[in-house]
């Protein structure tokens, strides 16, 4: 019973990381109908930047803040420089471009920082917490991870729902033609969407890297799980991204814990299994809404 609790809690914490990546993918999908395969790579790069800042200033929080800011900038820059030219052309172009961007970013990281594994500090203690004498399987840092992603998610949701800028983004995502004809600068809105996605990715990066160590490919498997979570939840649904992430995190935690093998092969297999099952039962994802048909 204790084990179950431990696996559940640690799965939820990891699941929040997947949720953050999934959310950033959903954000970009809704805005541009593209899957950003470079999202993990961008998160890795901003984490390297954070590490530099921490080294130079000695302050974790300075590095944290700079990573988030760099995420915003990198997201916007990617949209303007790399994605914008692909708009209006066949969709395959954009897919290849984002994969190319991923390879470029990972290559640059290797050139600048080398391939060796670096350790990245955690914001809070990573010692397991206890309830009385029972180990809970999560640490203060894990709780921070969950709360940070939750806070970011709620802030974004509130922003979309209650601000004029949020209304513009939703209008542009639902019907770009009517939005443009109403005077909304859809191109600008899309750039902001990518910037916010970059922010979420950067957050996921600094939160997960203490566990995975930092190297040019460190975000690859996290990205794949985040992508899986987004698809499970329904690519158009932000709530689906969060639920998908948590679900995936928890199930993978059970798989790793109960089936014994901590190796990535088995967890990858389980993730694939979940994906196949969900897509067979609900091809659009769990939270896909009914399609609004235009007559």
């Amino acid at each position, binding site marked *: 019973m204790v084990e179950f609790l431990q696996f559940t809690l640690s799965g939820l914490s990891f699941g929040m990381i997947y949720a953050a990546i999934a959310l950033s993918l959903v954000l970009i999908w809704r805005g541009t109908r593209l899957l950003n395969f470079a999202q993990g790579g961008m998160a890795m790069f901003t984490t390297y930047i954070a590490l530099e800042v921490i080294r130079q200033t000695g302050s974790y929080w300075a590095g944290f803040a700079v990573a988030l800011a760099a995420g915003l900038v990198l997201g916007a820059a990617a949209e303007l420089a790399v994605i*914008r030219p692909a708009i209006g052309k066949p969709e395959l172009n954009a897919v290849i471009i984002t994969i190319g961007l991923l390879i470029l970013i990972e290559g640059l990281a290797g050139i600048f920082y080398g391939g060796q594994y670096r350790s990245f500090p955690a914001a809070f203690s990573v010692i397991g917490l206890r309830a009385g004498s029972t180990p809970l399987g999560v640490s203060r840092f894990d709780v921070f991870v969950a709360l940070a992603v939750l806070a970011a998610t709620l802030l974004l949701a509130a922003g979309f729902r209650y601000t004029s800028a949020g209304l513009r983004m939703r209008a542009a995502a639902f019907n770009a033609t009517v939005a443009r004809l109403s*005077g909304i600068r859809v191109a600008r809105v899309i750039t902001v969407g990518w910037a916010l996605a970059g922010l979420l990715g950067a957050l996921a990066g600094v939160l997960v890297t203490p566990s995975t160590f930092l190297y040019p490919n460190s975000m690859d498997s996290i990205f794949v799980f985040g992508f899986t979570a987004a698809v499970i939840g329904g690519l158009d649904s932000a709530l689906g991204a969060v639920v998908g992430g948590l679900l995936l995190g928890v199930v993978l935690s059970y798989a790793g814990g109960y089936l014994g093998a901590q190796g990535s092969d088995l967890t990858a297999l389980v993730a694939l299994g979940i994906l196949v099952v969900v897509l067979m039962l609900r091809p659009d994802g769990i939270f896909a809404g009914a399609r609004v048909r235009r007559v």
Partner: protein
Amino acid sequence: MTSPAAAAEPTEPTDGDADPAVDAPDAPDAPDAKGSLVIEDLVAGYGEVIALNQVTITAGAATITAVLGANGAGKTTLLRAISGMVRPRAGRVLLDGADRTGRGPEEMARAGVAHVPEGQGVIAELTVEENLRIGLMSRPARARRGADRAAALAEAYDRFGVLADRRRKLAATLSGGERQMLVIARALVARPRVLLLDEPSLGLAPRIMTQVMDMVVRLSREHGITIVLVEQNARGALAIADHGVVLNLGRVVAAADAATLAADDALRHHYLGF
């Protein structure tokens, strides 16, 4: 659903939020702004197809101009060329004398040209109130906030009680006639100089059609909005219009005041099918 990215062509450089087109002397709220629209020798098309061939139309300020013709005549392309969705290959679009040819839809909207495409007046996934707020997006920033915004919305709700009742409901739950009501209300909120309507009565029951046409007339008479109305329902359109233009295969084949056109049997038989 159209990809938002595909609809956002990267054309003009983006201005800051202080848009000279809106704050300039001929801005919608300024006394000189009349809303006269002149289209000169416009040529526009898609790929190898020329949809508009040397089209010249004058729509006087605060008038209603009906644009009629069979399917494929170029009516929708005409509206798109005016609002900036399609870039003309030749010719000019003049708004109150100022050349606005080839400007993108965002700019044209901020200059006071509102275009309601066929079947796409409202954003179904947003609420009624949010759709009305979208109408404010083309107006100067201060009109979008606080008391000004509340006043604009209140005026729309006053005029259209049904919308007031459904303000928090998704636009998708509205009937066809109610959606067109929302479209007209949004036009009221946006206070454009020129309103381009593409088949507003499509798919509506005859009684609702009449109501929509009445609302269109009121927009023109009470608020001085210049209206360009594309309609398959030629009879209904000519009944409320001041002038009529008939297009056929991208050319203007007749342009006269509405009464003359309505009385011209030969024209009606030949180009309008009744």
